[in-house]
């Protein structure tokens, strides 16, 4: 019996940077065999300026040691294959015939230029499920416009709403559009796989990253369409609840989040703080009064939180039923006892980068992801080209001479 939902499913990952690789990683986590197809001339292994390596050492093969790449590609296989050469293209089509899914997030024109758009791939494999992820979509006046995830926070409307009072628009501290598009794409593939099991029908899924991110802002757009006003850049203020925000704690750059949206929560807050006299004041008696006087409320609360480490403040508030949490940095997230108890982190041994904890998946389903490292460059040329496609060792050497495959990136 299959141990994971996608056991027996094979996906080819042509993903670049973040969104495509994230989608394919979700499939690998669910049990699919994911094969990355990488170019020696353009390996896409996140080794440019700003790359992060173990102990800050790029080493002899930096393309096997980049944190960005190794986090997004754990659990996959990798081959090198130059799709711009006819021989590489022909081998890729043979591989497509043996696969179920292709994930790509090039600009809309690239697959066509390579002679590898959906109609061509479908001829090789009529049941294929192909996902094409682009910035603004494969049609419309902006179809050839490019964007990375961060820019789509701007173009979706998200950034205009986000920021400190009176300040400029801001974006999140992570490229938020990418994993969002990646998970939407994985969801699309799973739904299409179910349809294929019932009807045999393949699918070409077209995903515009901006549309995917806009889906996460649906109520704001529906509200705007219904005539609600836009309220850009309110810091952490809530439209009707107070106190609501982050408060400074004891120690440098330490904060606790506190959110009170019910009478019960307000009573709990009073108990946690030892029933201070200011909390009895008439102006804080009901929710409207607290919201109207939220700045004074925030000052009182901050005076209390400043005396406590964030975990201590959060613990005291939670003990009285108040929604509160320490604002955790990546090191603290990694040490979080709750995530650990959930089995969230995966300890993964990588042959060239060492053993480290990786973020896992937010769902628990059956066995969970297999803790396998990201592939070394060209690691699976033998498995894929010889075992799956039946090429001989001699043919492999000829391919290497022609520059179709390579053992290491060039340049």
């Amino acid at each position, binding site marked *: 019996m*299959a141990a994971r*939902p996608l056991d027996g499913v094979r996906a080819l990952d042509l993903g670049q940077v973040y969104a495509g690789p994230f989608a394919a990683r979700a499939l690998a986590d669910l049990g699919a065999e994911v094969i990355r197809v990488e170019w020696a001339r353009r390996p896409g292994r996140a080794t*440019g*300026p*700003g790359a*992060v390596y173990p102990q800050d050492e790029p080493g002899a093969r930096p393309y096997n040691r980049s944190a*960005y790449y190794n986090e997004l590609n754990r659990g996959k296989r990798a081959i090198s294959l130059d799709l711009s050469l006819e021989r590489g293209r022909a081998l890729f089509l043979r591989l497509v015939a043996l696969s179920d899914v292709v994930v790509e997030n090039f600009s809309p024109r690239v697959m066509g230029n390579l002679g590898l758009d*959906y109609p061509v791939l479908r001829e090789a494999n009529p049941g294929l499920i192909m996902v094409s992820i682009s910035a603004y*979509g494969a049609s*419309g*006046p902006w179809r050839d416009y*490019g964007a990375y995830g*961060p820019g789509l926070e*701007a*173009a979706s409307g*998200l*950034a*205009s709403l*986000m920021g400190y009072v009176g300040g400029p628009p*801001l974006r*999140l*501290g*992570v490229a*938020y559009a990418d994993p*969002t598009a990646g*998970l939407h794409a994985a*969801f699309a593939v*799973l*739904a*299409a796989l*179910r*349809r294929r099991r*019932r009807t045999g029908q393949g*699918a070409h899924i077209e*995903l*515009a990253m901006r549309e*995917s991110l806009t889906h*996460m802002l*649906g*109520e*704001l757009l*529906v509200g705007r369409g219904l*005539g609600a*006003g*836009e309220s*850009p850049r309110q810091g*952490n203020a809530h439209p009707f609840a107070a106190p609501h925000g*982050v408060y*400074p704690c004891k120690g440098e750059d330490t904060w606790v989040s506190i*959110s009170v949206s019910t009478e019960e929560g307000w009573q709990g807050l009073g108990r946690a703080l030892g029933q201070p006299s200011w909390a009895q004041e008439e102006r804080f008696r009901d929710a409207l009064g607290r919201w109207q006087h939220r700045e004074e409320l925030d000052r009182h609360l901050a005076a209390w939180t400043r005396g406590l480490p964030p975990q201590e403040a959060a613990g005291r508030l939670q003990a009285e039923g108040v929604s509160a949490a*320490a604002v955790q940095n*990546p090191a603290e997230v990694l040490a*979080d006892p*709750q995530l650990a108890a959930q089995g*969230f982190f995966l300890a993964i041994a990588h042959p060239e*980068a060492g053993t*480290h904890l990786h973020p896992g998946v*937010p769902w*628990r389903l*059956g066995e969970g992801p297999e803790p396998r490292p990201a592939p070394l460059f060209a690691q699976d040329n033998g498995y894929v080209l010889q075992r799956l496609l039946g090429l001989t060792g001699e043919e492999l050497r000829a391919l290497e001479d022609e520059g179709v495959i390579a053992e290491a990136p060039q340049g």
Partner: protein
Amino acid sequence: MPLSGLSVLELAQGVAGPYCGRLLAEQGAMVVKVEPPAGDYARRLGPFPPSGPHPERSALYLWLNAGKQGVTLDAGSATGRALLRRLAAQAQVVVARPDAASLAALAALDEAPLVRTTITWFGADGPYRDYRGGELAALASGGLLGLTGEPGREPLAAPGPQAQYQAGLAAAVATVAAVLRAEATGQPQRVEVSVQAAVASLLEGAILGYGYTGRARGRMGSRHPAVYPSGIYPCQDGYIHVHAPGDWGAFARWAGLPERADWAADPQAHAEEIEPLLSARLRGHTRDELFRQGQEWRFPLSPVLSLEEVLADPQHQARGYFQEVEHPAAGRFPMPGPPFRLEDAPPPAPRPAPMLGQHNAEVYGALGCSSADLVRLREAGVI
């Protein structure tokens, strides 16, 4: 539709569970949403139209529940739980908020549903399992809040309940995967999603980066940890997002900045010299000029758009992304389209969210309740 024929019972309120149900409904699943007689609490949250709060006009509810059938049921009463068992017995998938009454009803089923999905703030077990959740608490403990905002200022939350959306999305992914496995093996599957973990799973390399170097990334405003220049800059008539990984020379030529070899070697290291020049350049142009000219040079600049501009956007219009929907109480309004399209199946016209108890007669009727039964149930406050 890819999920045609899949029957889903949604015992969830708020954002995460309903967003999961909405994604399933959008792909063709038949989703029956069960609300307490007072309604999903999302009906009391905004945004609301200028006419003010009204349980049938909450944009949050109208968005998250579009395309579902809606029934009311008091899971706290014995009759309600009996009815819930009959509803659940007909569903292949149950997306549940793990409240005691719903879980008791589910536990009493003769046969477990094919897939049971629950979403909790911190997980169903572990030291914080009983902690009071919330959007901010999930963003804070999951690590996204601490990375967002300007250095030296307080961490900043995102607009909208993003942590809960992410949990709903993760739940939809895992739910369909579980359906595939359950159908293949005949074994019922359980899915558990934690909102905190959903946040911690999208920190863009920050976790492994810390493991590799011992340095924890901090807040960087709108800038990017690995790419320079990258950020939101004021221009003549608004703001533009600049993101220029790669060749400094080409970017400098486009922006009219010095093509110095030392800057080209490591632009980030010269950010203090570059910033004032770049800012001045961008201020001299409109957002539209910068967007279009940048794109012609293949620099992925993006305009910072307001919601109003997004609603009127020519690209969205050309792709038919927003489609008008008619709701009996809220009127006509534009509904955002699905997050992806199947080329062989254009997105169908959007369907509105249900009015409170709108499908009681239809859904309970299909269970064999007569109209007299329905009157009795209503009088007893069960539906």
